[in-house]
């Protein structure tokens, strides 16, 4: 699958943008600038919305279905991945009405273990790749990393972009790398693993850069754009996600293709998760309120969602004693 096929649904003025480094730079720098104060004010205004009662119960279940349950530690073991995968299928063992999460997100060498545990459950296996989290490796190594993960059975590949190249303005290089990983995501049977592009917005300095990198990733054929690795502070923030949601909305307007958004890192409480959902609804639209188009990259968020869920069903506040220690 080459760049041509990935970009095929893109209108001519957009595909022309990816023709050369100069054209791409012209296009990305021609995007309207982000009003920083405005974006932050809008994000905090939306975060203040109150979601109660049945709407809250619905939102909590939706948020659980959107969680990419993540473990990306050097100390990960097969046992831990198995335990996490089991939890992903039945987050609240005491309550069969509790939905499963969207995916389990692990390092490539753990994909096989997760795959085996999750087989037939409908929960996806996502794998980080391309020398996560820094992305500092030779292109061939990065591609081999991603290929490995796909062969091991990953449904989704979370790749990191080369932030160094992006910040020094070598946009075409970044684009080509994403396209190359996108090709590797193809399986022999013609299907392909979904490609999530991690922009690591904590290293991109400005909201303008966030908007540019979002468009860059989408032009390169990303199925999802993801804020952060979770290894860099600040990780996901509301304003950054707002800018990304605007980008996917505008991209659909321009091309008809819907790209997903995944804030990752630093989202720990139900309250924060609900603020994100409100923002998805208000900025991108209800079409994006779907686990196929919006995800939370998180590990501790799920426990808080479960505790809030217990609170909604039993009427009393729950305790961390009643959820797993991950």
């Amino acid at each position, binding site marked *: 699958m080459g760049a041509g096929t990935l970009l095929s649904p893109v209108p001519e003025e957009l595909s022309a943008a990816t023709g050369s480094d100069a054209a791409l730079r012209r296009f990305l720098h021609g995007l309207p600038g982000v009003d920083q104060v405005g974006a932050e004010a809008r994000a905090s205004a939306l975060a203040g919305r109150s979601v109660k009662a049945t709407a809250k119960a619905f939102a909590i279940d939706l948020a659980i279905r959107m969680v990419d349950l993540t473990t990306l530690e050097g100390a990960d073991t097969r046992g831990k991945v198995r335990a996490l995968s089991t939890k992903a299928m039945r987050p609240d063992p005491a309550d069969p009405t509790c939905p499963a999460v969207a995916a389990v997100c692990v390092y490539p060498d753990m994909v096989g273990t997760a795959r085996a545990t999750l087989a037939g459950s409908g929960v996806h296996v996502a794998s980080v790749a391309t020398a996560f989290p820094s992305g500092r490796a030779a292109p061939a190594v990065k591609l081999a990393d991603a290929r490995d993960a796909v062969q091991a059975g990953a449904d989704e590949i979370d790749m990191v972009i080369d932030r160094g190249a992006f910040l020094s303005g070598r946009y075409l290089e970044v684009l080509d790398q994403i396209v190359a990983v996108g090709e590797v995501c193809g399986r022999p049977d013609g299907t392909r693993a979904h490609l999530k592009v991690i922009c690591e917005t904590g290293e991109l300095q400005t909201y303008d850069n966030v908007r540019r990198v979002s468009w860059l990733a989408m032009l390169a054929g990303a199925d999802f754009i993801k804020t952060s690795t979770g290894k860099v502070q600040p990780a996901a923030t509301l304003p950054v996600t707002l800018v990304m949601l605007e980008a996917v909305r505008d991209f659909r307007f321009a091309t008809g293709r819907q790209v997903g958004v995944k804030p990752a890192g630093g989202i720990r409480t139900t309250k924060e998760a609900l603020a994100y959902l409100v923002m998805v609804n208000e900025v991108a639209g209800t079409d994006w309120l779907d686990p196929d188009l919006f995800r939370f990259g998180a590990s501790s968020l799920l426990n808080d969602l479960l505790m809030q869920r217990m609170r909604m069903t039993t*009427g*009393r*506040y*729950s*305790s*961390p*004693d*009643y959820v797993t220690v991950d």
Partner: protein
Amino acid sequence: MTAPLEEPATARRVEVRKTYKLFVGGAFPRSESGRSYVVQDTAGRFLANASAASRKDARNAVQAARKAFAGWSSRTPYNRGQVLYRVAEVLEGRRAQFIDEVQRSEGVGRRQARALVNLTVDRLVWYAGWADKIGQVVGGTNPVAGPYLNFSVPEPTGVVAVLAPSGSSLLGLVSVLAPVIVTGNTVVVASSHQRPLPAITFSEVLATSDVPGGVVNVLTGPLGDTAPTLASHLDVNAVDLIGLVGDAERATELEQSAADNLKRVLRAPVREPDWARDPGLERMTAFLETKTVWHPIGV
């Protein structure tokens, strides 16, 4: 000595009508609900405004107490004793204010208010002394018929919710609070609804002594808003219902909701005890768990 500043005869000073806040996690937040209520003295005169805590404030307080538990319970008993002793020192330094508040809140005479405050300071010192002694008194090695060293140690129960006595606003409060924290528990206190001022001022004492934030959290306001939440909260390990003396119906209700996660419940007595009497160890041991260890010894 300098001459005292004299007020001009004609100037009528505008009174500062204070609104007190809650004490949660070492900070003084307003109630999440934004509500407050008027506190009156026994004669019905305005004393101050106090925050009316909601169930979400109770939840936040439990969260703060849970967060503080690991640090507080792992301090050495000796250090906890020192901290409590320091609280007594700071309280001693603010005697005048406490005497005034106790007098106005409880409607007692000046002399009796002074005696109550003195007794409160003494009570704190007394409990501070117990910090590194209670373990020896209620724990120890046990004789067993086998090749084992068998010993028992008391450990704190966890987060304790205390409904403070409604009558004795300072001595009663300290008499139920000190035994809970001296052994390493952390606490959420729902203060007396009618007489919250000494509790709030006491939290100012705690904030300026060495008690880590979150070890003691003080909620003011109607018990009906906070007590059911505290009693049913799964992250609360024990509850002291002393504040429900004479309200058997509500006490039973709370005992039932406390049963969900098998909280330890210190039931409300028929009438409020005489706080001036020797307190004994009961209030400390009520919130201790005994851990017994069988250690094999080579014979």
